[in-house]
């Protein structure tokens, strides 16, 4: 039991170090979230809707950390909700990097 906790703890540290460490099944979940749930407001092709466009062109020159914090903490005064609690920092970094590269349904 104690050993299991230690392993889980290590895994968590590893996950929070780099977005590359997000597991393959988790990536599938995140990809689905990005297309379907983020897509509700930003469009499934990320060309925007009630929320702004999130295409590579639209994100050009936008700071990675600013985007990560926007997803984690939301944007007051807009419908963008905070996703922390549901998504880890590693999850969000993976999402942001995916957006920089471009997302296609």
């Amino acid at each position: 039991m104690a050993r299991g906790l230690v392993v889980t703890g290590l895994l968590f540290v590893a996950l929070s170090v780099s977005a590359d460490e997000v597991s393959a099944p988790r990536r599938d979940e995140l990809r689905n979230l990005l297309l379907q749930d983020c897509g509700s407001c930003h469009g499934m092709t990320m060309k925007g809707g009630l929320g702004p466009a999130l295409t590579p062109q639209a994100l050009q020159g936008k700071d990675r950390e600013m985007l990560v914090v926007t997803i984690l903490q939301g944007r007051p005064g807009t419908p963008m909700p905070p996703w922390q609690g549901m998504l880890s920092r590693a999850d969000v970094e993976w999402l942001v990097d995916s957006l920089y590269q471009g997302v296609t349904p």
Partner: protein
Amino acid sequence: MNALLRLVVPGLLVLLAACTTPRGTGDMGVVIERASGSLAIVETTHDSRLGSVTGLGDLSHASVVYSRDGRYAYIFGRDGGLTKVDILTETIAKRIIQSGNSIGGAISQDGKLVAVSNYTPGGVRVFNADTLQPVADIPAVYGTDGKRSKVVGLVDAPDQRFVFSLYDAGEIWIADFSQGATPAITRFKNIGKQPYDGLISPDGRYYIAGLFGEDGMALLDLWHPQQGVKRILNHYGRGQRKLPVYKMPHLEGWAMTEEYAFLPSVGHYEVLVVKRNNWQQKAAIPVHGQPVFVMARPDGHQIWVNFAHPRNDTVQVIDTESLKIIKTLKPGKAVLHMEFTPRGEQVWISARDSNQVTVYDTRTFEVIATLPMDKPSGIFFTDRAHKTGL
């Protein structure tokens, strides 16, 4: 002669059957399969899928209205696509890309105009329902420097009008087409911050916009528009304790019984019950999650509710007399939409991430059928053709 008929008639029947057997569309509908940009054509007599139409573009947040003969479905895509689908022949009759980014649409009282509300460029464009040729363009310009607002909550209203809300501007506009193709526009300013959706009462009299940026709703009496927009339900909204909203509530399908209206709370796990005669809140019913659609069975005896991410695997049913939850169902992962058959004996529920639509008996709550679909979202039956605002 009789002998001849006996020979010829069966032959004709065989010929007819070999072509398409004529049928009505009253028991038909469509389901949006949003990931593949296709449409499932369904019928509710045998609960089956009749066919598919593909090539409809980005269908995230797609919606549908029907021609008054119930034969053509107009599909409003997120990518600005407006597609007219013949649900009998399962073919695209016409398709245009009318803007960069759209959110919904409406068909006029006389069935001759189809209006689309656009985010980019912000405004409403109106088309001939028959040909999809442009009829009118209404840019949602506000303020003094020519900015254009995203348009939401577009509905049709009696006397050949369309009504819609300007999300960025905080305005409600009426576009009156009763005098022809050039609409008379009436603007109502300062109706509240960030109207996110709108609805019209089933009788077509009241237009109501939900506000995201502040509490309350904006009410316009279309019998007396000169009286202006009133604020109602000042406690309705996100309130003091502003919880995050993971999916905007939808106001279409305004659930009304004789006495009450039922509304999705914004961010809170409640369905609000409002008295129709004075728009005062009567009760708040605690529910499983943040409601997205709050819909009345056609007879008004039950209210069905689905919920926002991440509590979106559940549907709850409220009894409108006791105001108590009488059933909790688990139709699958990511429940997006519900649609009742015209007289309400069935409800069809889409579960996007379970790739299925489940048909329930609304009296026994038993599953009648399960239809596999590719990421199903909105379900639209043809009886919408004859309902104001749908």
